[in-house]
């Protein structure tokens, strides 16, 4: 899958999400950032906030606290100390 970004969101308890998606938006300590496929190698610590995973018209939101993100050629890895899926209410 060359045109998709492989992302995995892991906490010490379990792997919360793993799959190929279009885009991930994550809260870095120095500002929110979006990652698309073929992003340059990048690493940052994470602030408290929401990680949004976008795939087609699907959208999943995870609240994370503490951790860091690592983006390299093989994909994106988010290591969060605490994370849980945020279930959005229908507007």
């Amino acid at each position: 899958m060359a045109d998709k970004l492989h992302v995995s969101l892991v906490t010490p308890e379990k792997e919360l999400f793993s799959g190929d998606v279009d885009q991930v938006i994550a809260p870095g300590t120095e500002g929110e950032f979006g990652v698309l496929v073929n992003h340059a190698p990048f690493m940052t610590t994470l602030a408290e906030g929401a990680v949004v995973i976008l795939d087609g018209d699907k959208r999943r939101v995870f609240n994370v606290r503490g951790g860091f993100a690592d983006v390299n050629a093989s994909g994106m890895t988010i290591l969060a100390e605490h994370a849980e899926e945020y279930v959005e209410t229908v507007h």
Partner: protein
Amino acid sequence: MASLKDMRNQIASVKATQKITKAMQMVAAAKLKRAQDAAENARPYAARMAAVIANLAKGVSGDGAPVLLGGNGSTQNHLVIVSTSDRGLCGGFNSQIVRAARDYINGLIADGKGVKIITVGRKGNDQLKRQYADRIIATFDMSAHKVLTLDAVQPIADAAVAEFNDGRADVVTLFYSRFKSVISQVPTPKQLIPAQIDAVEEPSTGSDAVYQYEPSEEEILETLLPRNLTVQILSSLLENTAGFYAAQMSAMDNATRNAGEMIKAMNLKYNRKRQAQITTELIEIIAGAEAI
């Protein structure tokens, strides 16, 4: 000589014990499954963490490396964290860990090094305080936490880092039981500080690629290393828990089997005695009848 009634009571009591050990075995089996899952689930996180740190460490090796990674150049004072279970009835599980730790500690003392001990789990503390009461600086009891989480083990990591930062310890080693399989747990030392970086080469990351760091490489490593320590402790403790239930399960399995053998032997003895008694009574009756 025990009477028939005494023997009956004895058999009943062994049977009751067997029921208890059997129940404990089944409880341990159920908990083992859960503990194993927890240990397994923690593995990807620890593995990724190690990979990331290994990646980072390549860039900052040398004099600029943080002390948690590179050490402070001394190996004079050692801090040994011994992790055992809080409860017993698990065969030689705790004794094995304690023995491994004790050998290591005695070796260090013989070399004239300073040794301090932190115990995690009540059983290890009980066994070690006989010999090293003055060396134990802290004891953590994990039985209050139903599920081990990062928050639960954070105090242990904090204590270790504080000892290190204050210069009271140069090398920190954790003793725990590696969960090799259900029937085999291996007491294993794991060096926490300076961090041991396994040379895990992530495939096809293109190691030549220039990483962009936010904030700087050093700062990330600075926050990552203490976290890594906590994660390492957590994953070790989770493996320990799984190992404990496995050991308890096989210990209770043995106990159940032994009780079964004991009941068999006692039943045999009881029946023989009963038959002998019946025979004696018959002889008495026949002898009485003949006398008339």
